[in-house]
């Protein structure tokens, strides 16, 4: 590794898959006319920067 981080590439791949699947799921729901405030996504944390 070029820097001092330590991780398994499998973890990164799993995270990436999760991100892609989550994004596609949200977009599919929004395409149906739902709004983000009404989506039922218990595992998703929305962040609003201060």
């Amino acid at each position, binding site marked *: 590794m070029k820097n001092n981080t330590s*991780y*398994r590439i499998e973890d*990164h791949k799993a*995270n990436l898959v999760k991100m892609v699947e989550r994004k*596609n799921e949200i977009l599919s729901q929004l395409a149906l006319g739902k709004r*983000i405030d009404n989506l039922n996504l218990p595992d998703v*944390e*929305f962040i609003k*920067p201060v």
Partner: protein
Amino acid sequence: MLSSLNPYNLREVKRGYEFTTDSGVEYEVYYLKSNFFDHIPEITVPILELQLAPIGEIPVGKSLLDSRIGDTVAKLVLDTVNGKNDVVIFICDCKDSREEQRWKKFNRWFARFDDGDVIKAEGMINAGSYIVYNGLFIHKEHSLRALVLSTFEELNNPELWKSPIS
């Protein structure tokens, strides 16, 4: 430059923001807590995943060629990153094989707004059945700038992606 932007006014909702274009199309723009660096314990700052989507189907005849959409997103991202703590990441959705077009549009939005304070990094991951275009924004004075950028580059290294995702 930020001053040259002509963004739409954002309406705040509980989880993010909404805006309506001149042609009447409604969009939602929001951040999710990103998993991108979850496995890197050294990266301890918030990583925000930017998402933008129209609400519902876009009516036939409504133009998507509206530079103010890009201005609106660019201003939100630059305002966020200029706080010097948050890092913003963006991945193109790839459910309809139009990710490359989205990526080009995304880059056009930000190409003319380089204010010198925000660094934009770009990556492309060939994950086998799809390609994940991804970008990252970080302030040049961010305390973890070097680590975040080098890790981002490392995670986009094609050598890492030679074996397929299981």
